[in-house]
């Protein structure tokens, strides 16, 4: 009983931060702050660096939810910084007029593309890819063409572009490779599709890991976790000759934060090895700077495909139309 009371009190007071410290509130997504995600290590490193500050993560469901929360809260937002908006959400986030320039030297950045944005600062990146189970599929497709022409029993698990980031990634990927031919490709791809789940977790955990299909839409970095932690080479990413769509995850500071200095300190800290070394196995993504020897060995065994991107503005303008295009091609 006493434990219960203590727990309830603990819940009640956990919201109140001590007044003496400078508090930096960061909106981010769930898996970033989890016990084994990069969050805890980064929090400790940053708080040690600044001395008297308190880094407070608020975990939302995903990048889209961070944007949604900013929209709803507007000027009165409780965030000093947002971390987890990917390139495809940048245009919409910029439109809200709530963000401020980062003024951080982007020279250390080591991305597959050039980065010139003065508001959004990347902290990791990865390619969307089809991960295959080598015990079911000895020769993975080497291109979209090969995937479309694969034998009937080679099924693939996708995610819905309306509810999942990876699903939207495939939408942009196919659109980038095939342009106006995309609807025809979707129609053909549907013959390969086992099912389209609402989220990545369902697809990867409930279906793919249960052996339901040899291919699943995921990230090119996914095999790194299997190789490094589970010590198995069974799951690998298939490299497509057309290139792979790129996801870059970014952070940005709010314009009317009460801690502009601290926020900029954090953004600068993002591009240091102390932050970045938590990314590869914590977030299972590629670090945004060159980590040198600190990069886990397994990352060198990942595929290194050519990168495809649309600008954030192109994505914002066309997303709805492309989703409808996909929908109509798939429903037929």
């Amino acid at each position, binding site marked *: 009983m006493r434990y219960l009371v203590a727990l309830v009190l603990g819940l009640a007071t*956990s919201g109140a931060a001590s007044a003496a410290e400078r508090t930096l509130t960061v909106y981010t997504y769930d898996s970033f702050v989890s016990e084994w995600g990069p969050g805890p290590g980064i929090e400790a490193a940053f708080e040690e660096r600044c001395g008297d500050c308190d880094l407070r993560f608020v*975990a939302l469901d995903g990048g889209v*939810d961070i944007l949604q929360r900013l929209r709803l809260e507007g000027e009165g937002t409780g965030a000093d910084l947002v971390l987890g908006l990917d390139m495809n959400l940048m245009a919409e986030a910029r439109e809200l007029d709530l963000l401020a320039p980062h003024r951080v030297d982007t020279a250390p950045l080591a991305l597959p593309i050039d980065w010139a944005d003065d508001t959004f600062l990347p902290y990791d990146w990865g390619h969307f890819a089809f991960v295959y189970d080598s015990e079911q599929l000895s020769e993975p497709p080497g291109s979209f063409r090969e995937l479309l022409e694969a034998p009937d029993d080679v099924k693939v698990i996708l995610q819905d572009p309306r509810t999942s980031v990876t699903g939207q990634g495939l939408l942009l990927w196919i659109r980038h490779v095939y342009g106006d031919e995309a609807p025809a490709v979707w129609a053909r791809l549907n013959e390969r599709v086992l*099912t389209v789940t*609402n989220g990545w*977790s369902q697809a990867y955990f409930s279906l793919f890991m249960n052996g339901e299909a040899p291919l699943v839409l995921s990230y090119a970095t996914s095999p790194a976790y299997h190789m490094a932690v589970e010590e198995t080479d069974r799951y690998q990413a298939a490299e497509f000759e057309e290139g792979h769509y790129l996801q870059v995850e970014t952070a940005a500071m709010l314009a009317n934060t009460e801690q502009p200095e601290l926020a900029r300190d954090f953004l600068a800290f993002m591009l240091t090895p102390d932050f970045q070394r938590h990314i590869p196995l914590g977030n299972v993504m590629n670090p945004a700077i060159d980590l040198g020897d600190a990069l886990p060995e397994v990352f060198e065994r990942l595929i290194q495909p050519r990168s495809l991107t649309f600008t954030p503005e192109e994505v914002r303008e066309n997303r709805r139309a492309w989703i409808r295009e996909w929908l109509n091609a798939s429903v037929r």
Partner: protein
Amino acid sequence: MSEVSLPSRWATLSRWPPGLGLAALTAVAGLGLGSLGALLWQARELHPAMLWQEPWLAAVLRFTLWQATLSTLLAVGLAVPVAVALARRPRFPGRALLLRAMELSLVLPTLIGLFGLVAVHGRRGWAAPLWEWLVGAESGYLYGLSGIVLAHVFYNLPLSARLMLQALETAPAAHWRLASQLGLTRAALWRTLEWPRLAPLLPRLAALVFTLCFTSFAIVMTLGGGPRSSTLEVALYQALKFDHDLALAALLALTQLVICLSLWLLALSRGGAPSLVVGSAALPAGGRWHRRDAVGASRLTDAVWLTALAALLLPPLLAVVLAGLTGLPELPRSASLWPAAARSLVMALGAGAGALSLAVALLVGSRWLRTRQHAWSALLMEGGGQLILVIPSLVLGTGLFLLLRPTLGSGWQGYGLVVLVNAFMALPFAMQVVRGALPGLSAPELRLADQFGIRGRARLRWLIWPRLRRPLALALAYAMTLSLGDFSVIALFGSPSAPTLPMLLYQQLGGYRWQGAAATALVLLMLVVLVFMLLGWLTRRPPRYPWTRYAREERHARVS
């Protein structure tokens, strides 16, 4: 003196039911309609024409109605023979286990349930070789309409059968004694004892299951095989999250609200009359008497039904348990598991207590209205309890957020809100369970109680409470475990880094910790079992009565 004051005190007491009911209704309607209203108010312009101008929306609506109808018919229809068989066989090895499993399946978080279903029924599942041997083709039945219906039956048949069993067991011992002495046949038993118990339950149960299937999201998408099989909530999700189109979101939510609520009103008006015969619910009487229909061919059919139930329920649960066992070595390494479990339990207790109080208030209020011939107000009050179920949680969350904007989202407020919304979401289930037992005293019993001056607290304590404690415990267990496994609400408001169990599960999956996630799922499952067992055990023994007709009846039942 006391004879004068007592009736007047009872009169003041009897003003409580409508007041309580009204307060609960205001809270539910305020929360549901308030959040929808906030969305509408923010959206400003509505274009209802969008609903029929988007061809795929019409297709989605048709499909949703079709799969929900099919799922409901199968889940509720098949639950009838299962419940009857369970009532006829009060003692067989594994019955307790089967009942536990039935309680589990409803509250299983979808992600875990899907894992179990895929492990058993998937293309590489346990049942696949059997299917290939029987049909000669590769097993692909889990994807598409058949898979959706299978999953919905897996989730809802046990709930339906469990509630039907509860209704069957409330038949008074005297009736069973009579039936036994008369040697009633199968058909006669069904006509005189079983059907009158089930009939008032069916419309509401069907409406509940239909609503659950209509609003089902992850199951329909994961097993649907593509956007052909979709639900309104996907469109809503897109409108709200990616497009920030509040108007379309509100419109879709309204569509869902209108369809489901009209169904509820229809169901409530059909199944309105509570059963005339009221027995003492404390005595699970059915099986104590020799039943003529319990021998012969029914042995075989009952065995078939119960085996089918076990085959539906147990393998997926077993798959989850087995996966969890392989993850057990990971448990000590997960520092946040036990705090998360404690946090979840505290929140579940709050939500369960809230749901129960609301359910009782609404039911008492609507009963009060019905006995005073305000049939429609009574309907409205009972229907109001179902409101939260038909408002998509995404709309609820966003609307609440808009309403409470400046103060929301930090620390304990977030948790408080989650408890509150979970209480409202568990309300329909709690009402369903308590309702069957609430009719309370029959007219002769009421007269008798009045004549003896058993009123107010005494009536509550000695006549009403003994009948209610078991159903209340079951309702509390359902409400608690529903909130224990809930992820949708907690994901809405965001939280500081202290997760609840289902959140922890998703975090583990997001971080590729399959083994740890499986172990977390197992712990969640164990907690659910524990809650049901504990609450069942606490109310297992009938309370000690003073020397009343109850005690006599009970003694008779024991002697024979």
